[in-house]
């Protein structure tokens, strides 16, 4: 074979190779099981987004919330709800110093790992999409909601107040029957709250035939200060009670297909 002929063949093939490499191809995706998580923030009768939020606790103290930030760290579908901690409302509140490795649980498909900073005053009466997960088929009995301090990846992280490394920030006023004028208060913490673990009304079956579900959570801010002495918010016991109330206020609003 002549040198020229070799080159002719080689160049033809080389051209075809290079053009082939420039193709874009084709792709397709068949959706699998999807569970959407949403958060519903009740307005308490006030128009959506109205500020500030006013309510009364069980002790008759009038409270006005001007800012109310909490960080929803993650939501986890669970198939094992047999533990004593898994009740419709949290039963334990002494163990919220759970070590909190701040890595996002990105590799577990049962976990919605994107943290959200929620401002309940500004978002009252609204609904926020927290994210979607693609868990394996199974029968799920409940959801666990983790409330931890925000990291830099937290969605909706504000600059003011500085919520980074904070799990809760509250600012407002309160007034008891004995007080002439409302007194201001500010509370902030980076502590991990006890997880809110909620049972589904009926087990949720996810399979190729039943691939979609929507889990809606709700936060009831108007019960946060029940039993809490607002004049003693520096007291760790009062802080524990407040954090317990916040965790307990996370409810399951509904599970829909």
């Amino acid at each position, binding site marked *: 074979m002549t040198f020229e002929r070799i080159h002719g063949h080689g160049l*033809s093939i080389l051209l075809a190779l*290079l053009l*082939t490499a420039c*193709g874009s191809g*084709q792709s*397709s995706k068949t959706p*699998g*099981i999807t569970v959407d998580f949403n958060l519903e923030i009740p307005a308490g009768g006030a128009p959506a987004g109205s500020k500030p939020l006013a309510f009364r606790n069980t002790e008759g103290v009038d409270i006005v919330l001007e800012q109310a930030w909490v960080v929803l760290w993650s939501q986890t579908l669970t198939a094992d709800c047999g533990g004593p901690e898994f009740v419709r409302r949290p039963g334990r509140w002494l163990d919220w110093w759970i070590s909190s490795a701040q890595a996002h649980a990105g590799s577990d498909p*049962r976990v919605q790992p994107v943290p959200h900073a929620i401002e309940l005053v500004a978002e009252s009466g609204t609904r926020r999409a927290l994210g979607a997960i693609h868990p394996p*088929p199974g029968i799920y009995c409940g959801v666990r909601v983790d409330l931890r301090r925000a990291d830099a990846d937290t969605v909706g992280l504000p600059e003011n107040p500085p919520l980074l490394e904070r799990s809760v920030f509250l600012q407002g006023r309160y007034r008891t029957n004995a007080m002439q004028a409302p007194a201001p208060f500010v509370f902030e913490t980076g502590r991990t709250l006890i997880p809110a673990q909620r049972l589904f009304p009926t087990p949720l079956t996810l399979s190729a035939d039943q691939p979609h579900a929507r889990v809606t959570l709700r936060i009831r801010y108007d019960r946060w200060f029940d039993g809490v002495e607002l004049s003693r918010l520096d007291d760790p016991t009062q802080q524990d009670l407040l954090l317990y109330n916040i965790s307990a206020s996370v409810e399951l609003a509904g599970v829909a297909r």
Partner: protein
Amino acid sequence: MPVRRRPPVLVFLWIVAWGALLPRAALACATCLAGDPTLSTLGLEKPYAGRLRVTAGFLHRTETVGVAGLNRKELNETRALLGLAWWPRSRLALGIQVPWVFKHLTRVDTGSERVSAPGDLQVYARYYGWQWGGSRRHHLLAMNAGLRIPTAVEQTADGPPLDFDVQPGTGQWVPSLGLWYALYAYPWFTSLQLTGQWGLGTGFQGYQFGGAVNLSLLGQRALTQRLAIQLALDTRWNGRDDYHGRTDPDSGGYIGFLTPGLVVNLSEDWLVSARVQVPVVDALNGAHEEGIVVRAEVSYDF
């Protein structure tokens, strides 16, 4: 939900390329020009100036990543490979390879993803720096350098990018360097190859290749002038990969394959080979398994 169409012109060009390859006459004898009757498959050739070889290859493999019932992904991959190698000098080889990648990924959530697209283009060079053993050049020692170029397009299926494992390429530049030694002692043939690879920059979805070292020892014996059998030990060590700076726990580790194979000389310059890589040593990190790899090649020397 197909979103990307393979341009028909590319299919046409592929066919045209193969049409151009069909020998109009038997004009050369590669083994004669190489001065050695060894049936040498892709990458094992004995060099001579002006040698030109085209190879069409096929590869099928399976891989699973993740924990069953939790986050397991099952990948079926088939690659059609078209390659060209040219020896402009007796001591230098240049090559180029383009794979067409077919991948099917099944996720634990019962969903699936499918891709058919060109993979990353690969170019390489081999310099035969040392040759000894008289005029028959029984011993060859060469240096290899290669580069995987991120020509593959990230597949999206009209939404966010598909899973990284189903992508036809990595989006990252991957150079490689290595040494190759071959002993031609017909009917015996032995080769040893050591190659290191590493990644440059960041690929699709924040991917950063953890690097790899490949060691391959191959023995071949010709049973007749047209038939040879092979047995190889192919081993690979991988570093852990990162995605957006986070280490993938199910990546990296060590795996060794025992690879029996067969080489058949169909006619003077046509060579067909098939190999099956069977994993015999599995020390991959995390929940990660690789299955049997089937390879087949057809080569033609001009």
